[in-house]
């Protein structure tokens, strides 16, 4: 028996013999359980820390995901010098991330959070060929197998309580244990990610505990401002009034699409987000509805402009770009590099979550973006739909295990499709030709909790029409495994 097999056997045995904890927990995976082994709980047990009224806290996490993509058939790959096809060969991808979360209370309602992070990664096909269904949400548009250490977040949050019911906020990563009012104003300023404030979903929860595919992390077609790692700088305001919440934020985009440098001219280029949320209860099961809209004014290229430029002057093709471009060698294709400038992009979406049983939650996200201009910061989909469910292993007496099933679909606009069909590429897709079709993903995962702080998960994904191209229909089968630890 190989060492890997022995290790697997030991892990399975450990999982099977892990103590069954009887604490009921709602299906959404809370960031940290009260009974979890972590540093702050350890201090609290020793009487050295007050979890309910924290002045500071410190948490950490480690996540390793490895994915194996099986070979699939396609009519063509990287046709005519285009470079954004998903490889049809067997490939392995991985990410390993290590994060520390520090929080400090400065004064009443004033908190600072600092989150350094390290990541090592290897994407499939150099992160090319998948539009909205990238198989591992941890993948970044920069980075390498050599670990990068960077500052993921450094932000200030101020809460002004305005009355109403008292709400206890548990001690968690990026949340000091405290009590707030159900009516409050929260202001966040600094270096964070848009997803820290907007489009939260308690069923899909922390993706490090649930779905692997990026299609389930947020709306696949929400081109929220972020650098190549997914973080940015900006400000957000949240107004909570009992079951209602309204959020407004402005974040800064990258200087060029999908790159790391940030353009700090917040008056010139920006991504504004608006969200309204209502929490409800149906037959005692809680749920939420969120409506989200965004408006970007960023430096990108419009597909129609790129096509027009190429048709007017075929010398302005993808292979002859002289400014920022994605490296296509296709002389017979338009390219966005010729037409980049200030452009607007907007979208509107809905996010639903509903508990339907003690430990089973359902979710749905849908978004429509205008689809006139290229992806600036997230991924290539112009319209998206995802839905599914997550359940805890309570019925089989493993309440901290998680199982989930989800479907994700992404579409592109007609003008986006025409641009790709002419051989153009954007930040992630472009096979040199296109038979337009929705890109879809089916995902099934099971996550085993062991030792109160470690999860080991197995995952299967089937991805259809990668790059929105029915000529490369697939399905692409991806098998993945994950080790996630919290401390």
């Amino acid at each position, binding site marked *: 028996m190989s060492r890997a097999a022995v290790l697997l056997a030991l892990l399975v045995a450990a999982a099977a013999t892990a103590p069954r904890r009887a604490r009921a927990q709602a299906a959404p995976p809370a960031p940290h359980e009260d009974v979890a082994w972590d540093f702050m709980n350890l*201090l609290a047990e020793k009487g050295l*820390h007050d979890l309910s009224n924290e002045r500071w806290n410190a948490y950490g996490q480690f996540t390793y995901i490895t994915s194996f993509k099986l070979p699939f058939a396609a009519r063509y790959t990287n046709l005519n010098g285009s470079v954004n096809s998903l490889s049809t060969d067997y490939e392995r991808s991985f990410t390993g991330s290590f994060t520390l979360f520090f929080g400090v209370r400065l004064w009443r309602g004033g908190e600072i959070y600092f989150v*350094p992070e390290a990541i090592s990664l290897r994407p499939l096909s150099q992160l090319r060929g998948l539009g909205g269904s990238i198989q591992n949400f941890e993948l970044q548009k920069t980075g390498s197998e050599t670990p990068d*250490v*960077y*500052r*993921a977040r450094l932000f200030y949050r101020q809460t002004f309580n305005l009355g109403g019911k008292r709400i206890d906020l548990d001690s968690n990563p990026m949340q000091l244990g405290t009590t707030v009012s159900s009516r409050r104003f929260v202001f966040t300023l600094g270096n964070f990610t848009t997803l820290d404030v907007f489009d939260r979903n308690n069923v899909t929860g922390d993706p490090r505990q649930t779905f692997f595919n990026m299609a389930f992390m947020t709306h696949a077609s929400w081109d929220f401002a972020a650098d190549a790692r997914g973080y940015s700088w900006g400000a957000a305001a949240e107004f909570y009034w009992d079951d209602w919440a309204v959020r407004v934020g402005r974040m800064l985009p990258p200087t060029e699409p999908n790159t790391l*440098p*940030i353009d700090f001219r917040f008056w010139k280029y920006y991504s504004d987000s608006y969200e309204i949320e209502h929490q409800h209860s149906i037959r005692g099961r809680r749920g939420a509805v969120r409506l989200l809209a965004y408006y970007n004014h960023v430096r990108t290229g419009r597909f129609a402009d790129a096509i027009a430029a190429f048709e007017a002057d075929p010398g302005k093709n993808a292979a002859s770009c002289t400014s920022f471009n994605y490296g296509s060698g296709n002389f017979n294709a338009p390219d966005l590099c010729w037409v980049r400038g200030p452009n607007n992009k907007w979208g509107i979406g809905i996010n639903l979550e509903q508990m339907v049983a003690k430990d089973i939650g359902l979710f749905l996200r849908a978004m429509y973006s205008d689809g006139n201009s290229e992806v600036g910061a997230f991924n290539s989909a112009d319209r998206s739909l995802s839905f599914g469910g997550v359940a805890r292993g309570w019925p089989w007496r493993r309440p901290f295990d998680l199982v989930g099933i989800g479907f994700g679909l992404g579409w592109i606009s007609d003008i986006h499709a025409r641009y790709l069909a002419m051989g153009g590429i954007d930040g992630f897709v472009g096979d040199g030709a296109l038979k337009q079709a929705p890109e879809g993903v089916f995902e099934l995962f099971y996550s085993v909790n062991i030792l109160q702080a470690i999860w080991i998960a197995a995952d299967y994904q089937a991805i259809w029409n990668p790059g929105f191209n029915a000529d490369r229909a697939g399905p692409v089968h991806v098998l993945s495994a994950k080790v996630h630890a919290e401390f």
Partner: protein
Amino acid sequence: MRSSSLVAVALLAAAATTAGVARAQEAPPVLPSAPGFGVERLAPSAPGGGWLVMDQLDLRGPLAGAVDLTLGYASNPLRVGDARLPVVAHQAMLDIGASLSWWRFRVYLNLASPLALYGESGAAGGYDFTGSSVNLGNNPDVISDVRFGVDFRLVGRTGGRFRLGAGAQLYVPTDHKSDYASDGTFRGALRLLAAGDARWLTWAAQLGVHIRPRDDADVPDGPRGSELLFGVAIGGRVPLGRAPWALVLGPELFGATAFRAFFTRAATAFEGLLTARFEGTAGDRAQLRVRLGAGAGLGSFGSPEWRLVAGVELFTHNQR
């Protein structure tokens, strides 16, 4: 001489001349590139350490902690060669740290981020220098070096005239040496720390070894391997009326010299900072400490012409 010999000589001469012309038309020789290194010489004290660089060894109580944020600006910290080429002309850094202490022991973590590093490119001393060019827009999330540290107090007590401690630090490289933000190698430091208080007088000192693998002795003003660390701080503590605050004012002198060029000007960094700090003195509650420093380089290697430092620190002490 026969005509054939004349022809041969003429051809050889022509060939030699042609070769000479060809050589003369070649591009000038390419100078080796200076590799860069971590130019920052101000290593902030451990979070909770009190001074900006020195450590007052105020370690007490069962569990305490501190977080700090230090901003610094240095003018011309690296000028190289006879022409004094300002390879790093402006350097602004942000350092964030956190520490936990348990009785006489402390562990801490510091993460430094360059906010701006600018300089000029050029040739000096047979090397081609590329001036640093780092800013927050191009490098929005960079962390230059991660510092892990552990300190412990060996002798003495809080408030006493003499305390002696020791500490170790490990630097993990996470940035590019070409930006002059990191050595690009693991580094370490072992230090003896001393401090004391006598009425209004407070002092601190350090002596240690900076274990530095980078040895670029051939490169003008480059690092020359491991160094001796030294420093001393002396100040007066003035209570601010009846408020639970005190002002500590005094100079800090600190530096490092490479062992292989012991106390030579080219391998010795030496700086002075006039430090003022306002700190809470209200016992068990979390206290704020605001630190300000201004000073100048007194040596050569990595010493800035002048420097400004500002820091804010939140710390707790258990009085038991």
